[in-house]
């Protein structure tokens, strides 16, 4: 008897503990917390309404991303997401008109090009101020650019490769002298590496990774907790139109599924880079959620090392280009969030031609078989291809991409594909050493110009990172000519010619072009996605709830 009662008391005790825990949990969950995640603080009160009577806008928008901010320092930052943050807190001499790839003056009022494109005279706006109210002058811009060259961080080549020297003409005029004429230099002047930063806040020759001093853009940083949260507020000294939403909070997630669930749970207003194709598919048609899509200028392609036999044989490379099934990859793996690409220059960019489609079609097994036969292969004597991929950089979908490439190539009956994978750093290093015959790579542009999609891949020496897989002196000459030519029509013709040679020689086979996909609550407006691939926070508005 005694024993029994003792046991039940223990059980009752345990039960009480469990119930208490649940109660405490439920209490904390139900309790209205001061900053509820579903409705941001001070939704309608506080700041005076921006637009008088009509729609009421919330003054905070929360954006979720799986990206990270690397360095809040233009001399070291060299990744797309950090650049996006810089494009919201700063501005360079040039910027892109939202929704287009058209360059417009940013912090400059006007500019002059002299000496056949070798000298740029920038006339700065006279009312530029940093977030703390200190003025930004030509001296500041010169200091910022020189600092990038001095620190020699990751993006230093944007300055070192092009600029000879900079010179202050007067307080609002800066002269930039280039090493040689560069046709696309205004596009280079739009990258955050050329953004002015306050000299009293940034050390002159050291990287300052967690610096929140910001620049001269629409927003300023008010809070920064690495890998957790970035809070931006409107910069009262911004020269242009003030941002439509006063405060932007960026929350950092570690994986795409949590990001998607955070949107569904109402913890964030916008799920930005980068959702999984399957999650996007799931979110489509969910009430209260809207999906935005736009072609990006992010491309994926197959690199063939032409120094490794049998890939030194053009016929072999052409056969691989012909058999590839791009549509299957876009539909099956990416569920329509990518589109087939038939050149290295993205769809929609000036000078783009569907060179590979014109030459080989898509998934043209018949042609591939003919080419393989000409190269001496048959069903008995198969071409063996070692195809390499990496999931550490391009995500889990990469294994499926490789599997579909293998399937399409093997459909010829004359190719045997062995698929291998390696970790990112290993992959890059082995590619660089010229040890991997066929690899999958991707490219995010540095500046929006065909040059950036061709020169680094095809110009001898510049494609050292791919193990110098290909070299063609005629192509080199064309690429160099297109860099210095100032007439865009002539440049377009040169790039078209280059794309034809690329398709003929097929050292690199384009696969697809990524779309930008964003999911947001349906009360968020002002989302502009374009090939520049930056989300402009200052254009966003959210209709106040209730």
């Amino acid at each position, binding site marked *: 008897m005694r024993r029994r009662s003792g046991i039940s008391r223990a059980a009752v005790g345990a039960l009480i503990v469990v119930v208490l825990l649940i109660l405490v949990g439920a209490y904390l969950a139900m309790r209205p917390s001061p900053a509820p995640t579903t409705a941001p603080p001070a939704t309608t009160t506080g700041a005076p309404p921006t637009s008088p009577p009509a729609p009421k806008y919330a003054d905070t928008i929360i954006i979720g991303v799986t990206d990270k901010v690397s360095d809040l320092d233009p001399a070291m930052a060299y990744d797309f997401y950090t650049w996006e943050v810089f494009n919201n807190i700063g501005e360079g001499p040039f910027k892109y008109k939202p929704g287009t790839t058209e360059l417009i003056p940013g912090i400059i009022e006007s500019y002059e090009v002299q000496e056949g494109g070798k000298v740029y005279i920038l006339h700065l706006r006279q009312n530029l101020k940093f977030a703390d109210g200190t003025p930004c002058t030509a001296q500041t811009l010169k200091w910022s650019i020189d600092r990038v060259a001095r620190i020699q961080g990751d993006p230093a080549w944007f300055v070192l490769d092009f600029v000879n020297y900079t010179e202050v003409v007067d307080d609002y005029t800066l002269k930039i002298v280039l090493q040689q004429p560069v046709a696309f230099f205004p596009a280079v002047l739009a990258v955050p590496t050329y953004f002015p930063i306050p000299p009293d806040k940034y050390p002159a020759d050291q990287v300052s990774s967690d610096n929140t001093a910001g620049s001269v853009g629409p927003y300023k940083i008010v809070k920064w907790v690495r890998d957790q949260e970035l809070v931006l507020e409107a910069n009262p000294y911004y020269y242009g139109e003030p941002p439509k939403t006063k405060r932007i909070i960026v929350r950092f997630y570690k994986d795409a599924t949590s990001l998607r669930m955070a949107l569904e749970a109402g913890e964030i207003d916008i799920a930005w880079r980068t959702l999984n194709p399957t999650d996007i598919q799931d979110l489509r048609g969910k009430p209260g959620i809207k999906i935005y899509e736009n072609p990006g200028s992010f491309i994926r392609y197959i690199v063939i090392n032409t120094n490794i036999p049998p890939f030194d044989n053009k016929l072999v490379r052409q056969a691989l280009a012909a058999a590839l099934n791009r549509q299957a990859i876009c539909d099956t793996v990416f569920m329509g969030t990518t589109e087939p690409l038939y050149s290295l220059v993205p769809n929609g960019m000036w000078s783009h031609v569907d060179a590979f489609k014109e030459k080989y079609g898509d998934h043209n097994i018949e042609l591939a078989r003919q080419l393989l036969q000409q190269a001496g292969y048959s069903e008995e004597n198969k071409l063996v291809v070692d195809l390499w991929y990496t999931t550490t950089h391009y995500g889990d979908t990469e294994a499926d991409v490789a599997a579909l490439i293998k399937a399409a190539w093997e459909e010829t009956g004359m190719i045997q594909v062995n698929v291998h994978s390696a970790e990112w*750093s290993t992959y890059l290093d082995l590619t660089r050493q010229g040890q991997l015959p066929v690899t999958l790579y991707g490219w995010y542009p540095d500046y929006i110009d065909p040059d950036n999609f061709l020169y680094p891949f095809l110009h001898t020496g510049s494609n050292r990172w791919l193990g110098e897989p290909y070299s063609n002196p005629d192509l080199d000459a064309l690429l160099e000519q297109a860099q210095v030519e100032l007439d865009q029509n002539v440049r377009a013709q040169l790039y078209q010619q280059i794309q034809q040679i690329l398709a003929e020689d097929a050292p690199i086979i384009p696969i697809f072009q990524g779309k930008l996909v964003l999911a947001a609550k349906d009360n968020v407006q002002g989302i502009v996605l374009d090939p520049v691939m930056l989300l402009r926070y200052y254009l966003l508005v959210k209709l106040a709830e209730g």
Partner: protein
Amino acid sequence: MASLRAYVLTRILLTIPMIFILLTVVFLVMRVLPGNPVIAMVGMKASEEQIRQLMHQLGLDKPLWRQYLDYLSRVLRGDLGNSMIWGRRPVIDEIMDHFPATIELTISGFAVSVLLGIVTGTAAGLRRGTGLDLAMRVYSIVVYALFIPWLGMMLQYVFGVKLGWFPVGGRIGPMMEPEHVTGLYVLDSILTLNWGSLASALRYLTLPSLTLGVVLSGVYTRLVRTSLSEVLEQDFIRAARSRGVSERVVLFRHALKNAFIPILTMMGLQFALLLAGAVLTETTFSWPGMGTFLMERIIYRDFTTVQGTIVFYALFVALVSLVVDLIYAYIDPRIRY
């Protein structure tokens, strides 16, 4: 007392060769792998010349033995060096940024697992052979076999998306961080009397610690059950009962305390496992801790950060196991050092 001091001293001294061996192994393994931080970060875009320059800046162009000696001499001076990627921040700063988050998760996950394990294990141990016992044994096997990201996602979906009770990811609500004291948000909120932050921190902590705690509780369930039923069959328990000592006193004062020795050993061992389990939990719940941080740095071959972090971890685990050993002596009078 003197022998205890000698014991502690010996343990600390033994840590030194352990760290040295670990450091050497990590140093070599990282460098034997192809790739280096410069290639991983700008390998695609920078020119040959710039890559050479960056390698020079980081001292990666020196012979390996030289790099090793330089590194050792710095570590001996207590300097873990600077990270090799991104802003090249001091490694110790990186660790201090991420470690408190992991500790907070680990401690709460640990508490949940021990609590669940003791409750379920005691229930099973006291009712051996009954349906309850069977249920608890099944529980222990099932939770032990659960995959952390799967359980995490289920909890996120049910309690986050469907019920909206708890947030699905992150460590604290927007703009809710308490003032920095220790870096542990729960503790800092209490220290600074910031109840709003405390509520937010606890809400964000609930699902991750439940995930980690439930999965690791299975081991304790089995251990408590076995250990408790063994103790309950011993003579001193029978003697206590025959003396008319109340069942509650028998259970808590005599049986559980004695059954606790193997459990405590397991706690010490589990702690290292907890740190490993935290990696998966951190990723699932976007918890900004050490696990995901270390994984990322291994991928980018951030040599110094990986070395420093592993040394730090090793020191921490050594410290925890030393503390556990000292607690033995306190609990079990038979153990003397």
